[in-house]
């Protein structure tokens, strides 16, 4: 899973590329650690090239969402492939994380 983080004014753009599963979840968590430290988070996570997420991935997105909510920030995931969106839908995570 490749992670690219760019900041444009107050907004942070995150681009995900590849599969997110148990083999790379730890690295993914490390990659997004800078996002957890943002005092005023406003994140747009582009999932155009994200192929899959496992439960480990869901847990990391949940952790990120909690961090964002605790600071009154915003997080939105965009351009999700249907097979990835399905994972969020059938686990009820679409109710927790904003996906457009």
């Amino acid at each position, binding site marked *: 899973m490749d992670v690219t983080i760019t900041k444009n004014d107050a907004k942070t753009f995150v681009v995900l590329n590849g599969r997110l599963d148990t083999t790379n979840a730890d690295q993914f968590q490390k990659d997004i650690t800078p996002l957890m430290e943002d005092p005023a988070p406003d994140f747009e996570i582009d999932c155009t090239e994200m192929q899959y997420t*496992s*439960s480990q991935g*869901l*847990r990391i997105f*949940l952790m990120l969402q909690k961090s964002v909510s605790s600071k009154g920030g915003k997080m939105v995931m965009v351009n*999700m492939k*249907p097979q990835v*969106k*399905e*994972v969020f*839908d*059938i*686990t*009820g*995570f*679409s*109710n*927790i994380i*904003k*996906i*457009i």
Partner: protein
Amino acid sequence: MENFADKYGLDARSSMIMSQYVGMMPLFKRMEEVLSKELEHFLAQNNIYVTALETRVKTEESLAGKLDKKGFKYDTIFDLTDIVGARVITFYTDEVDKIAAMVDRIFEVDWVNSIDKRKMHQLDSFGYNSLHYICRIPKKMFFDPQYPEINEIRFELQMRTALQHVWATINHDIGYKTGIEIPVEHLRNINRLAGMLELADEQFSAIRQEFNDYRRRVQELVSSGNFNDVPLNGDTFRSYLELRPFDKLLKKIAAVNQAEIHNSSVTPYLNVLFDLGFKTLGEVDRMIHENSEDAYQLATFQLAMTDLDIISSTIAIQDLCEVYILKHGGGVDALTEMFDKVNGKSEGNSMRAESVVNAAKQLSFMNRKKLEK
């Protein structure tokens, strides 16, 4: 030493009191700190929420003005009771009495000099309604050998509602700014307004009482299981959720993949329940019982072929609503509407709705429905 006689045109005795005041300022400041901290502590301990808690030490100018007008009444600084003052502003009138009772327990109240201005009015008059207690800080609450006088000096504690505060503030402003005696016709208008505020205060307290009574009755009905008599609204739904009505289904769904359940609020689904026409908790409770097995079937169909071992606690009500909609003739549009309502509008919602419809086509509850037709 500063010459207060020249500065404010005071007589010798008042000037001496001014000197005492300046010399004792560190003590007054300390007293104010203690008062603020103790009041804050006791209000929190008694679960009393107030709009404001203010403390202050009288300013030099204000004291000089007072001594200029009424200096003949005081021999020493210890005769003044309002050098240090506190004001507690409440939401409701009954809370003023509650705070007064609390103050009576924690401070030493000088009853001779305390005034309940709320009881001072003639039957045909209105006006400044406030409760003023003159108190001392008892040694058992606070004692500092550096400032033993803190337990001797009296302070004034005003207790009033927010509306009484509005009245007092505006009345003071008008009186202060004009500096002249208010003509009778204007006084009548001020008194009319005071009467209205007094009535409004009473009404707010009465409305709160009625609302609390209603909430208690509803909670009793909910906990006794008499759901049919309980209208569905935000308040009753929250009480119902305390009974954890979705837990059984949720645990069953979680067991499919031995999944961890992440707790998340289901209240966004309240609007969906309204849209589906539910009017009482009884109807919601029946919907859960009548559709749990089918919702479980749907969840199993979606999850069993995956290794996803975390679910949101919203999944139970989500699947229940999906099943209910499908069994009542709803399709892609109705499901899309539900997802739009709960998760926010998104193009993916209609695809999600199609996916649910396709899954349901393979499940027994939808085929049962066809056979019934």
